[in-house]
């Protein structure tokens, strides 16, 4: 035995190391991309007058301090609300067992996590915005809402829309890790709600709370589209929005580099925490908890709390989506389909999201295989390096990556084609961590299970892949749908490079919401929602919910 792993003959070990080396190479490339992006901005910034001063201002100046404070406040509040409600919901769903709406709620929570951010923003505005149905109803009955039409409250609501389901799923996944016998033991002993929480649920939920809090904080801290669309001005901002302003409106590269460095530092700290806690970015198997009998199920306080939590989830997710559908002016909205710009944006979106999904899937497969092989051959350090390099792509602001590469490459290709390449690259990096973590658990089981037979039959390389791939059918379909959906909804790099020559659907929606608003924007949001649903129904995901993550 070596390092707790079975001893592998040298020839087999060499074969196992091939994907590991490939993964190490690609991981180095990813980390290189992070370094290169920051370096290019520094270099370009320092060439300009006052470059270094501007860089220092980016790191320590009032803009940075303000953006950092605002982002920390917003992300902290979003995290507390999302994790609190998410874990409360996870407990409620476990306690209610196999109740009639469980499957629908899980499907709904999965849907909420893949709805494009710009669509969710518009849906939330249709309820709580200036002319929103919920706001008008509340004002009509003289009920003051605790948040304004735009601002922190709306951003928190939107972040909860996406992250409560995520925290809920991570909580469910943690609770489902408790063996059936423990639930039966709890029932035999007649544990009360408090006993269940203290002795059974909290010990596993504690880890899920830390993991989901770090992940959600990271997502909210780097939030861009939602803050841009719902923040309502400079009062509510994030470093990512400040970078966007510095690049798009002021073209202040050193300031953008300084802000990006600040963001990298905070995100790196959070990712290290996530990595240390081994928190999953995407969980599996959350839907399988059986409804063991529980003494506390009938207690009125538990019943009230559970149904309140479930009701809040429905209000949080269903109400905005329903409002988007119900408030639709179909006739006026149909004008959208007469506009060439819509068809152009649809084509551009397809040209980005389909290749991005395929490449993400390919890279995810390589990285996941490399991680499994690293464990099999006892190469822990290599495995950690690969894991960290994939996570590092999460902390690199897409705008910084896009700008840096644009500066490097703009003399080599026309801007529209360059924009396509940059959006494609940003989208691949966006979905890669999620796709990789979707494939890795299955491969971790599948590869060792098939190894002996494959080795005996002499299956390797492409021939081995042809045997293994069909067994990954579900994960590949879901991974493709997830990557395509994330790409379809991404409003990141396109916000910098969107133009008449190249624009995606989220960018078009952002413009419509800002300039024209109304029926066509809502129709466009519905089209995007429909495309996401189509992707997931095709992958069978919404009818067979198992896990999720944004």
């Amino acid at each position, binding site marked *: 035995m070596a390092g707790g792993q079975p001893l592998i003959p040298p020839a087999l070990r060499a074969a196992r190391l091939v994907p590991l080396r490939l993964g190490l190479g690609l991981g180095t490339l990813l980390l290189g991309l992070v370094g290169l992006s920051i370096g290019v901005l520094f270099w370009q910034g320092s060439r300009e007058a006052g470059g270094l001063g501007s860089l220092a201002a980016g790191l320590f100046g009032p803009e940075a301090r303000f953006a950092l404070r605002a982002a920390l406040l917003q992300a902290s509040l979003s995290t507390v609300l999302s994790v609190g409600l998410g874990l409360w919901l996870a407990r409620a769903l476990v306690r209610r067992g196999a109740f009639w709406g469980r499957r629908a709620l899980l499907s709904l929570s999965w849907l909420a996590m893949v709805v494009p951010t710009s669509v969710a923003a518009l849906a939330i505005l249709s309820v709580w915005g200036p002319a929103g149905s919920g706001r008008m109803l509340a004002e009509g009955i003289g009920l003051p809402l605790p948040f304004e039409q735009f601002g922190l409250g709306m951003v928190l609501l939107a972040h909860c829309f996406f992250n409560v389901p995520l925290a809920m799923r991570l909580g469910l996944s943690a609770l489902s890790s408790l*063996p*059936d*016998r*423990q639930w*039966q*033991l709890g*029932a*035999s*002993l*007649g*544990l*009360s709600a408090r*006993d269940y929480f203290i*002795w*059974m649920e909290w*010990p596993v939920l504690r880890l899920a709370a830390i993991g989901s809090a770090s992940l959600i904080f990271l997502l909210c801290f780097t939030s861009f589209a939602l803050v841009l669309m719902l923040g309502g001005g400079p009062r509510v901002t994030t470093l990512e929005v400040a970078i966007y302003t510095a690049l798009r409106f002021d073209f202040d590269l050193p300031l953008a580099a300084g802000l990006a460095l600040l963001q990298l530092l905070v995100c790196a700290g959070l990712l290290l925490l996530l990595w240390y806690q081994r928190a999953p970015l995407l969980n599996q198997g959350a839907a399988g908890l059986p409804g*063991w*009998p529980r*003494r506390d199920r009938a207690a009125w306080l538990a019943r009230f709390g559970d149904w309140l939590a479930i009701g809040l989830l429905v209000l949080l997710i269903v109400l905005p989506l329903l409002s988007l559908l119900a408030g639709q002016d179909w006739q006026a909205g149909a004008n959208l389909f007469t506009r060439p710009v819509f068809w152009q944006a649809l084509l551009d979106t397809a040209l980005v999201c389909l290749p991005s999904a395929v490449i993400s899937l390919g890279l995810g497969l390589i990285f996941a295989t490399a991680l499994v092989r690293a464990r099999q051959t006892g190469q822990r350090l290599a495995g950690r390096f690969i894991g960290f390099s994939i996570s590092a792509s999460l902390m690199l602001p897409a705008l910084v990556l896009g700008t840096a590469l644009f500066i490097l490459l703009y003399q080599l290709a026309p801007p529209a084609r360059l924009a396509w390449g940059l959006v494609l690259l940003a989208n691949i990096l966006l979905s890669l961590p999620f796709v990789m973590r979707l494939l890795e658990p299955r491969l971790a089981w599948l590869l060792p299970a098939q190894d002996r037979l494959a080795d005996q039959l002499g299956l390797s390389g492409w021939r081995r892949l042809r045997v293994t791939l069909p067994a990954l059918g579900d994960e590949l379909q879901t991974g493709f749908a997830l990557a395509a959906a994330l790409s379809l909804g991404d409003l990141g790099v396109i916000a910098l490079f969107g133009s008449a020559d190249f624009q995606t659907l989220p960018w078009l929606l952002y413009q419509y919401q800002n300039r024209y608003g109304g029926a066509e924007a809502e129709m466009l949001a519905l089209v995007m929602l429909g495309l996401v649903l189509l992707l997931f129904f095709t992958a069978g995901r919404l009818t067979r919910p198992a896990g999720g993550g944004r």
Partner: protein
Amino acid sequence: MLMLENLVWGWPDAPEQTLDLTVRQGEIALVSGPSGCGKTSLLNCLAGFMQPRAGRASWQGTDFLPLSPWQRPVSFLFQSGNLFEHLSARRNISLAFVRRREKPADADRQVTEAAARLGLEAGLLDRPVTDLSGGQQQRVALARTLLVGQPVLLLDEPFSGFDEKLKHSAADTLTRLVADQQMACLVVSHDARDCQRLGAKKQVSLPDHR
């Protein structure tokens, strides 16, 4: 007296089993049979985790099948997973008091005494249960079962994974406890020799219908 009258159970789309059995206080009965014949399912039915298809299970004449698991007069010792692994042995045993409205003032003393009766030294009680051997873990679970104080004891393969010496010592302890506490004990095992080890008064062998 534990009475099973024409109790019928089985998984959906699987052959059913039927059992008539009476176990008196202080008596041990053994149900044996091949793997997969429905032995554990029988205990799950009696503990309230599975719905029997028909029949009656009563203690002192009262049918307890309509009751919830925590209301039944039974304690169930599973084949595995009897303990919360993140808790100490003492905390695991003291969970026995959860069923009662109030924790007794001398709860700690009762825990120590119950453990001592099963040969568990006080020094072991504050260790995480994962630090204990398989036999010690089984005795921690048994100590909790004793403190719960239910009159019917259900044991699922209680000696699996034990060596021969440990099997004999555990069987002796169990036989003594059942007699002292006047419990009705139903043991399921694939090993028919457990009948002799436990001095079981009755033995039923379930047929293999598969």
